[in-house]
C-alpha cells in the first residue's frame, strides 16, 4: 500500500510538471507564434523519378547507368570525388576488362604515388584496382578552389539524402535563375547571397554549386542513346548515383 501511494505521488509529480510544461508551451505558442521561414514555405519535395530499377521486379538499365557514368566523368568529376568506388566496379554496369583499363588509364586526375627513384611525392596513371582519385589533394585545396565551399564526395550521395536518386535529379534540374518575387517580398532577408544559387530542392534554398548541367548536348552520348537533354542527363546521372555508386 505504501509503495502504491509513493508511486502515485511520483506519477502525479511527473504528470503535473508535464502539464505545467504543456500550458507554458501553449501560452508561448499563442502569445508569440513561431514565425514562418522561407525554407518552410518555398522548399520543394523532390520530383517523381521513374527508373527501370523501381519496384520489386525492377532491373537496372546498364545503358542508362553507363550514360550516367559518362556525365559524372565529364561534368561532376571536375569537382566531386567518388572515393569509395573502384574502377573495377565499372564491370558491374557492363564495361569489359579492356574498357575499364582504358577508363582508368585516361582518367583526368592521376593517383598519388611516390617516385621510386627519389622518394618524392608523384602521381601515376590509375589502374582498375584503384579507387577513383579525388579531384583535389585535400579539403583545404577543395575549399580554396570553390569559394570556400566543399564539394561533397558522391560515393554515398543517394543513400545520404532523403529520396536518394529523386533528390539528385530534382536538384540538378531545379535551379531557378531568379528567386520568386513572392519570396523576396515576404522574406527580404532570404535573398540569395552573392556567390550562391537559388534552388528550391536544396534544404536551405541556396547552394554554392553553380548549375552543373546548363545546355542540351553538353555531353555527347554514343549513337543509339536518347538525346542528351539536361533533363535526360540529370535522370541518367541520378540513376547512376543510386544504382551503382552507393
Amino acid at each position, binding site marked *: 500500500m505504501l*509503495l502504491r501511494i509513493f508511486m*502515485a505521488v511520483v506519477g*502525479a509529480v511527473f504528470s503535473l510538471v508535464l502539464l*505545467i*510544461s*504543456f500550458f507554458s*508551451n501553449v501560452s508561448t505558442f499563442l502569445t508569440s507564434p513561431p514565425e514562418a521561414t522561407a525554407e518552410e514555405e518555398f522548399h520543394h519535395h523532390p520530383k517523381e523519378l521513374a527508373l527501370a530499377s523501381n519496384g520489386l521486379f525492377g532491373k537496372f538499365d546498364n545503358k542508362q547507368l553507363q550514360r550516367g557514368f559518362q556525365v559524372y566523368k565529364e561534368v561532376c568529376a571536375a569537382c566531386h570525388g567518388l572515393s569509395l568506388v573502384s574502377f573495377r566496379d565499372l564491370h558491374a554496369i557492363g564495361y569489359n576488362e579492356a574498357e575499364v583499363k582504358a577508363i582508368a588509364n585516361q582518367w583526368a586526375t592521376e593517383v598519388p604515388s611516390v617516385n621510386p627513384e627519389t622518394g618524392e611525392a608523384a602521381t601515376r596513371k590509375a589502374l582498375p584496382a584503384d579507387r577513383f582519385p579525388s579531384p583535389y589533394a585535400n579539403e583545404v585545396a577543395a575549399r580554396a578552389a570553390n569559394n570556400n565551399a566543399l564539394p561533397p564526395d558522391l560515393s554515398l550521395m543517394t*543513400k*545520404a539524402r532523403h529520396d536518394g536518386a529523386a533528390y539528385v535529379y530534382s536538384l540538378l534540374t531545379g535551379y531557378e535563375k531568379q528567386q520568386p518575387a513572392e519570396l523576396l517580398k515576404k522574406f527580404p532577408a532570404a535573398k540569395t547571397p552573392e556567390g550562391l544559387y537559388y534552388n528550391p530542392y536544396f534544404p536551405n534554398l541556396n547552394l554554392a554549386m553553380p548549375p552543373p548541367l546548363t545546355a542540351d548536348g553538353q555531353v555527347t552520348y554514343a549513337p543509339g542513346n536518347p538525346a542528351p537533354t539536361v533533363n535526360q542527363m540529370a535522370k541518367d546521372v541520378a540513376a547512376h548515383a543510386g544504382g551503382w555508386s552507393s
Partner: protein
Amino acid sequence: MSFAWAKPYEPKAPFMRWLDERLPLPRLVYGAVGGGYPVPRNLNYWWNFGVLAGLFLAIQIVTGIVLAMWYYSSADGAFNSVEHIMRDVNAGWAIRYIHMNGASFFFIVTYIHIFRGLYYGSYKAPRELVWMLGLVIYLLMMATAFMGYVLPWGQMSYWGAQVITSFFSAFPLVGEPIRVWLLGGYAPDQAALTRFFSLHYLLPFVIAAVVILHIWALHIPGSSNPTGVDVKEEKDTLPFHPFYTAKDGWFAAGFLALFAFFVYFAPNFLGHPDNYIPANPLATPAHIVPEWYFWPFYAILRAFTVDFILPAKLWGVLAMFGSILILFFLPWLDKSPVRSGSYRPVFKRFFWLLVIDVLILGWAGGSAATPIRVAISQLAAAYYFAHFLIILPLISAFETPLPLPDSISSSRLHGEKAEAAPIGMAPKGGATATAE
C-alpha cells in the same frame, strides 16, 4: 520441470544413455524445450514473440561476430571499413544489412512481447521475476543498440553519442565528471569509439546469460496463457515438442520472410540518411534523432520544457529513465488477481489507450520538435506516467472482472473454446461440453 505430469527424460539410444549418465545435457534440453516441458494448450500467436526475440538475438550475435572480423574501430577508419564491408567483402552487404535491420526487428518482436505481457498480466505472481529479468534484458538491449549505432561513425552515430552521453551532465555536480569518464574525453572520439565497440561485443553475451535466467524463472511456474487461469491438469497442456516447436518454427519462417523483405528491398528504410555522411564534429545535423526504437523515450525527454524547481533537462532525464524503471514495480502496482486483460473490461480499454499513447510518443519523438508536436508529446507523456502509477492501481482496486473459466480446457472466452482445443485435438467431453 514445472508440473507433476512433466515427462522425465528417457534416453532411447545407448549413446544418449551413456551421455546422460555422465553429463545430463540431453535431459536439460528435453526438459527445457522438448517433450518434458508442458505448455498450456491455448497459447495464441502473441506467445510466439519470445522465441522470435531469442532467434533475433542469435542472428545478431552471428552476423555481429562476422562483421567484427572486418570492422575497424578507429575514428579515421570505421566509416570506410563499413563501406569496405558493403562493397568488397563477399556477401558483406547482406551480413551488414541483416545486422542493421536485425536490430530493428529484435526491437519490434521485443516490443510485441512486452505488450503481450502487459495485456495478459504476465508480470503477476508467480512470474514477477520473469518480468523483471525481461526488463533487465530490455535495458541491456537498449545499451547495446545505442553503442552499435555509434560504431559506423556517421553523422547520427557521432551526434547521437554526443546527445545521449550529455544526459548524464544534467545531474548536478557528479554529472559532468561521469559524462567525461564514460566517453574517455570531453567529446566523442577515439576513446569513446573503442570502448563502445568493446562493450557492444560484450553485452550481447550478457543478454544471452540473462535470457537463460529469464527462461529458467519462467519454467518454474510454467508459461502463462490467454485466459490467465492456472494450469490445473494434464489435459490443459501439450508437450513443448512437437507442438510448440512446430508452431514457433512455422511462425518464425513467416516472420523471417517479412524480415527478408526489409533486408533485400528496403534495407535503409528504418535507418537515417545522415548516417551515410561521415562523422563531422564541426557540423551538427539539422535534426538529431535516435533510431526509431528510442523515439518514445526521446519524446518524453524533450517534453519537459519548464524549469519547475529542477532544471527542465534534469526532469527530462529523470522521466526518461523513470519511464522504464517504474515497470519494475508493475507487479505490485496492479494488484488485480485476474491476469488476463480479456476478463478485465476497464483495464482492456486503458491498455489500448496506452498502446496508442506510446505510438503517439514515438511519432512525436521521431521528427523535429515543433511546438505542436512537443505539446502533444507533453500530454502523451503525462498520460504514460498517470497510466502506470495512478490509473492502473485504481482500476485494480475498483474494477469488477468478468467471470473466469473454470479451467483452460473449459475456457468460455469469445470463441476460445475452439482455441482451447486445436483442430483434431478436441478433448472428448472437454471444452465443447463444458463451454456454457
